[in-house]
Every structure is written in structure tokens, then in C-alpha cells.
């Protein structure tokens, strides 16, 4: 089931219609029913597995909410079990196809020409993150365990967020279920706008950029220089449009039902530092990492380590470095099996540690060069540098192997002399390994889409577009809506491609 498919939108439309036709008291239960139906539509195995995990966590959370007993041991066991399930499901296929396990299974007497494969249940890793967060919050007494099984189940299964989050918090989500709002024209209208905008980002921006990106990253050794750079920049916008597009659709859909999900993005490519980038990229996940990995680890280390200088560096800095590195390695590992994800996470860890350790010296350098007298120019340079570093990390995230990643990184600034040899369209087609004019059109459209997204991001800083649109006359608003729908119809790439983060 594809979340941008016609089938999904028909299902969603029917849900909205039935939701508002039902009496208010029954709407919460209907949301649960709709979510279960959708999960069953996706697959019985997916549903059964999530149901087992959810049921187990429900009982553990209730036990954690009680006084007495060894709560700490219970928490560690439950978190461990959740992680074990996640690891098994996520890495089973890789392990099963690896030589070691095959030899082991052969020794145990299992002979099969095809390795056993497990289908990873949709949204399982987001669900497990949500549930681990819930257990820890209950343990810390930040949240009460939810006694109402219907509310708890809706928190786990709520269909707009099942595939890719946001990683919700019980304290934020569940209270909203008790206050099911009646139909509100403005809220529903805003929700629909957000869904359409999300769909535009996915099918027009992300999937169209994906055509060029796939071409480059599937055969990176065919290219050097400018083509590789374009491929990386396009991928940066592709993944942003893809993921934030889904998030907008999830937030919009929830808003129609009167539920506000946690935001996930806040113009990440206009961040002036890597720290700022992570504060505005996949926010619900980065906050989860901060609350449940980074901070506990940092507190633990600070209680273990004496205040002193190791290799002339203060303990606090070491604690920060170790905690950040571990957090981002976990972040990389969560995204997938493979050294490229670990490298990607490690790179962000290194960026942040380096950024933190050199903060003072960078400030001194800025003031020495009198750059602080030109704050706007300095801001643009910072945005450019941050974007450059982020793009460099994206190379390893998208590359099919670490070797491909290193090839791309090593050939970014080579082959520029060939650009100078382009004199006509024919040369350009050969240069981009294009054989037909439509592919050149794809490239031009991709460049225009990246420019469009950049302009939208910049304008949004001062003039939030949806808020501005509300103040415009109705004819202008309707022209904008029509253009948006027509852009989806005429520019959208409707091939059966899923959302990128659905794989994680």
C-alpha cells in the first residue's frame, strides 16, 4: 500500500466523512477502527506483530506506573526486549543472507538454496521508538500509564503517523483524544491544504528529483565533478521534500481529525550550524535521541568521570564528545544496516564535536577578520557551509556502498575542464550521459524545483505562506490551490515509489 496512492486517498476521504457523521463520543473509537483496518489492509503479519509489541508494552507500562517492585529492572528488560525485536526484524535479512548464518544453519541441518527472509512490518521502528519513549516517560513519572486501552491503542496505531512518524509522545498525543473536537471549518481547510502541499512535495519535488538522483547514484563511476555535485544537491532536496512531504500529509490528515502531531521540520537547509540543522531536521526523532540517549548518557558519564583535563581537554568536552558520538552512531544504526549509515552518523557526530570544541576559536577568527560587521553576509556563508557539510554526509547516506561513497567524495571537484568543452546541446547531452532531449528537460525541471524550494524556504522565514495566503482574497487563494493541483497532475512522478524513510 502506497501512501500517495489513489487507494489511500479514497480510504482517507471515507474516514473523514464517516468521522464527522458519527456522534462526537464515538469518533475516538472510529479512529482506532480506521487505523486497524488500514494496518490489516497493509498486511496481517504487520498488524499481528505490532499488536503483540503494543500489548506487551501496555502491561509493562502499567506495571511501571505502580509503586514498589524492581521498576528499574522491569524498564531495562522491556527496553531490551523492544530493541531486540527491532534489531532482529531490521537486521535479520542481512544476517540470514550472510555466509556465517548459512554455514551455521547448514551445520544445524537446515538446507535451503534461498535464505529465509522476513518482511519488515511497516512503521515498526517508529512504533518501537514511540513505545520506548513512553515506557521511559512512565518510569520517570513524566507521564501516567494510560489505563484506557482504546486511547493507548490509538496512540500506537493512529494511521496518519504509522509509516514514518513523527515519533509521538504519549503526554502530547493521548490528552488530545479525550478532547475530540467538533467540525471546525478553518481547521479542516488548513488540514486539507497541508495534505495537498505534502503531496506536491512528494510527487512533484521528491519523485521528480529522484529520477536524476537514481541515475547518478546507481552508476556513480560514470560521472565526475558537476554531475556528482548536482546529484548530491538534488538528493538533499529529494530526501527533504520526501520526508517533510509525508510529515505534512500526516500532520494535515491528523489536523482534520482534530489531533496535532509533533512537528518534524523547520527549514533545515537554512540552518547556520550543524547543531541548528539537527534542531530543525526530523525534530521528533532528534528530540527522542536527545531525551533518551544523549542526556542519560551524558549524565551517567558526568557522574562517573572526575573533573579534570584529559589530553589538555576538559572533562565536560570529553563527555559531550563521547555522548554525541554514541548518539549519532545509534542514529546511523537506526537508519539501516551497513557501514555507510554508520559513517553518515559518525560524520554528524564529528561535525558537532568539532563545532563545539572550536566554537571559541571560530568566534575569535570572525571578530579578527571583522566579519561580524557584516552579519547578513556572515549568515549566508554559515548557511552555505552548513549545507555543504550536510550534503557531504548525505553522500554516504545515499550511496549504494561505502566504496561508491568514497568514489563520489573523491571525484566531486574533478572533470570541470569537460564543462568548458560544452559548446552546444549535443555536447551537453553527451556530458550528462543523456541520449534524449526529454532527459535534458528532466534536468532543467529538477533545477527549477530546487530553486523553487529554496525560494519558498527563504520567503517562509518572514512570511509564513499559509498564514499569508489566508489574508488574500478568495479568487487569488483559489488560483494558488488550482495551480498546486495542476502542478501535481502535470509535473508529478507517479511511478510506484514509496517514501524514502518508510524503509527505516
Amino acid at each position, binding site marked *: 500500500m502506497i501512501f500517495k496512492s*489513489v487507494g489511500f486517498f479514497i480510504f482517507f476521504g471515507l474516514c473523514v466523512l464517516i468521522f*464527522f*457523521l458519527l456522534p*462526537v463520543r464515538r469518533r475516538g473509537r472510529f479512529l482506532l477502527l480506521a487505523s486497524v483496518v488500514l494496518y490489516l489492509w497493509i498486511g496481517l503479519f504487520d498488524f499481528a506483530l505490532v499488536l503483540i509489541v503494543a500489548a506487551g508494552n501496555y502491561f509493562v507500562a502499567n506495571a511501571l506506573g505502580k509503586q514498589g517492585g524492581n521498576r528499574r529492572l522491569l524498564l531495562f528488560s522491556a527496553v531490551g526486549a523492544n530493541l531486540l525485536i527491532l534489531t532482529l526484524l531490521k537486521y535479520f535479512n542481512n544476517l540470514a543472507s550472510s555466509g556465517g548464518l548459512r554455514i551455521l544453519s547448514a551445520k544445524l541441518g537446515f538446507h535451503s538454496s534461498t535464505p529465509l527472509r522476513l518482511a519488515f512490518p511497516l512503521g515498526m521502528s517508529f512504533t518501537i521508538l514511540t513505545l520506548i519513549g513512553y515506557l521511559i516517560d512512565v518510569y520517570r513519572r513524566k507521564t501516567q500509564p494510560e489505563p484506557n486501552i482504546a486511547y493507548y491503542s490509538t496512540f500506537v496505531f493512529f494511521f496518519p503517523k504509522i509509516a514514518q512518524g513523527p515519533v509521538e509522545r504519549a503526554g502530547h498525543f493521548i490528552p488530545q483524544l479525550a478532547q475530540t473536537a*467538533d*467540525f*471546525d*471549518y478553518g481547521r*479542516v*481547510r488548513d488540514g486539507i491544504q497541508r495534505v495537498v502541499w505534502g503531496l506536491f512535495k512528494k510527487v512533484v519535488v521528491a519523485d*521528480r528529483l529522484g529520477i536524476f538522483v537514481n541515475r547518478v547514484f*546507481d*552508476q556513480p563511476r*560514470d560521472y565526475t565533478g558537476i554531475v556528482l555535485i548536482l546529484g548530491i544537491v538534488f538528493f538533499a532536496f529529494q530526501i527533504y521534500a520526501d520526508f517533510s512531504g509525508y510529515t505534512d500529509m500526516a500532520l494535515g490528515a491528523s489536523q482534520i481529525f482534530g489531533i496535532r502531531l509533533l512537528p518534524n521540520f523547520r527549514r533545515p537547509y537554512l540552518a547556520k550550524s550543524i547543531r541548528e540543522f539537527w534542531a530543525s531536521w526530523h525534530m521528533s526523532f532528534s528530540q527522542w535521541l536527545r531525551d533518551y540517549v544523549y542526556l542519560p548518557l551524558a549524565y551517567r558519564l558526568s557522574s562517573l568521570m572526575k573533573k579534570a583535563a584529559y589530553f589538555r581537554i576538559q572533562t565536560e568536552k570529553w563527555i559531550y564528545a563521547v555522548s554525541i558520538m554514541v548518539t549519532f552512531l545509534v542514529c546511523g544504526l537506526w537508519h539501516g544496516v551497513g557501514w555507510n549509515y554508520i559513517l553518515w552518523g559518525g560524520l554528524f557526530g564529528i561535525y558537532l564535536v568539532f563545532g563545539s570544541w572550536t566554537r571559541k576559536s571560530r568566534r575569535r577568527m570572525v571578530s579578527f577578520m571583522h566579519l561580524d560587521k557584516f552579519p547578513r553576509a556572515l549568515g549566508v556563508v554559515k548557511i552555505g557551509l552548513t549545507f555543504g557539510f550536510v550534503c557531504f554526509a548525505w553522500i554516504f547516506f545515499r550511496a549504494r556502498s561505502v566504496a561508491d561513497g568514497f568514489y563520489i567524495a573523491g571525484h566531486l571537484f574533478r572533470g570541470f575542464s569537460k564543462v568548458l568543452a560544452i559548446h552546444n546541446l549535443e555536447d551537453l547531452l*553527451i556530458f550528462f*550521459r543523456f*541520449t534524449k532531449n*526529454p532527459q535534458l*528537460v*528532466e534536468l532543467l*525541471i529538477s533545477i527549477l524545483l530546487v530553486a523553487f524550494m529554496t525560494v519558498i524556504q527563504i520567503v517562509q522565514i518572514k512570511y509564513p505562506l499559509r498564514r499569508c495566503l489566508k489574508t488574500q482574497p478568495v479568487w487569488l487563494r*483559489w488560483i494558488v*490551490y*488550482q495551480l498546486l*493541483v*495542476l502542478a501535481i*497532475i*502535470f*509535473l*508529478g*512522478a*507517479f511511478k510506484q515509489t514509496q517514501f524514502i524513510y518508510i524503509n527505516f
Partner: protein
Amino acid sequence: MNGPARATFGFLLKKLALFCFLLVPSYLMSLLVFTSGFFNNWIPNVRNFTGAFGHSLVRFQEIHNFTKMDILFFGSSQVYRGFDPRVFSSFGLRIFDMGSPAQTSMNSYYLLRKFIDHVDPSLFVLEVGSLADHGGDESTIDLISNMPYSKDMQEMGIQTLREFQMRTMNSILAAYIRRIFVPLSEARQRYDAENIYISNGYVKTCRATNTEARLEMVRPQVRGAEVAYLRRIIELVSKKGRRLLLVCVPISKALKMNITNYREFSKNVNVLASEYHVAFIDFNEDAHSSKIGLQDDVDFYDGTHLNQIGVEKFNRYFIRYVCSGTCPSDFKK
């Protein structure tokens, strides 16, 4: 829902309905704008194939002048770029290429259904290399854009749209809307220096060298629906008491090597052909290709298409093989 909420809910539904109602003229206008003038073929999800370089417009105008012929070819661009009527005519044979860009069995079936009572060839030749390609949407757009409205073409359009594709739907609709303003009889064939329409459906390419970039390994899967249409073609031809030959037109050796399941594909077509007692000749088999003597860099202009030198070599071999005593006995003339 309370009273005011119900009223606003109704208001929203009315507004949505009005929005959709207004969207229809905007959409139809956009179709016209995007398939004419500056925007023509610049918008990814709508294509104007009327008078395009597959030359279907002139081909299907010309077919009406033909009733008697020796061989009628169906298939993809490999057909209308691969069988030169001038070579056949030097052997005293009259042929017509009824190919269209990326034509699949589904397209061939509807074309055959439309023309089988109009033309009377001694032999139908169907190129089956496109079986494992795609759903025939490109050819559907091309045929609908360049042929007069007919029941067969309409049915073909509906069949293609069963696999919903935005581009196909937009392009088919655009073709019909354009026809309101410019009738097909007034439509003009576009010309370019590289593709020259000769006659009898044949398009000569002026590209001589194979400049295709490195080829990727592919493993195309034969679509069940395409095989079903192939069966329907065989049944239709035999019902009408005509003869049919299935062929695979030569592709470059490099491309053949990169199709990892080529042998399996060829074998499957052979099994199907044997089932219906229809002859199948794969000209990419070693036995044929060594005799034709085609070379990747001399006789092809890309992986799938022969250049004029290659066409002449292949056609002479084809005539000798199919129309002389070397071919399966039921094709002897």
C-alpha cells in the same frame, strides 16, 4: 455533529465540489496549452505525439492506399526502422511496416483487429522483442494521436488506462481535445534531419554510429498480459486463415549480453509459438547473427536499432531465409 458544525461541514463539501468543478476547465485548458507552442513536450506528464518522429501520422494515412501486399509487419520502432521496403522491392516483394514507437502485443492486437479485413498480405510478421518491455502506453498515445477515432483505438486506450498512468491519461485526452481545434486531416507531420519517412511505413535514420553510453545489466520480465495478447493475435490470424511469423529483430551484441534472461525469454516465446504451430525466428541466435554478420559499431546506431547499412544486411538475409527454402517449411513461397 451539532447544527452549526453540520452547516459548515456541508459548506466545505460544497466548496470542494465547486473547486473540482472549476478544476475541470483549468485542466482542459492546461492540456491544450501544454501540448502546443512553446510548452510542447516540455511538461513531463503530457505528450503531443501527433506528427511525431515515429511518423505514425503519414504511415496510417498511407496504409489506406494499400490492400494487396506480400508482408505486413507489426511491432515497435525496430519494425519501422528495421524493414526497408526498397530492399524487399528489389526482390519483387511488397511490404508495409505497421510499427509504432514501443508497440507491444496489446497495441499490435488492436491494430491488427482494425486492419485485418482491410489488408490482405500473404504473411503477417510480428516483432515480439517488446513483450518484456512495458504496458504499451507510449504506443497507445502515439496511435490515438495519429489515427482517426475508432472503436478499436478507443478500446486500446481504455485497456492502457487500466494501469492508471497520469501521463497516458493526460496525453490521450489532449489528443482528443486538440482534434476539436485541428482535425487530423489538417495535422502536419514534424520533420527532422535524422528521421526521414521513405514510404510503406519505413523510417530511415541518418544516424550512422552507435554513440550509446555504457549499457546497464537488465532482466526484463515478460508481462502476463502481453503474452495473453500474443495468444489473441495468433488466434485472430489463424481464425482469418492467414499466416503469421513471430520474429526477434537483431539487437546489438552488447545489449543482448546485458539482458541476463535473454535465452529464457527466447525459449518461452518458442514454446508459445510451438503450442500454436506458429513459426518463430530469433535473429539474435548465434546461428543467424553469424550469418547476417552485423557488428555493433558498424551496423547499429544504438543498442536496439540498426542503421541503414545494418538494415540492408539484415533485410537481405531475412528475404533469403524466410522467402527461400531455408526457413521452416510452411513459410516457403
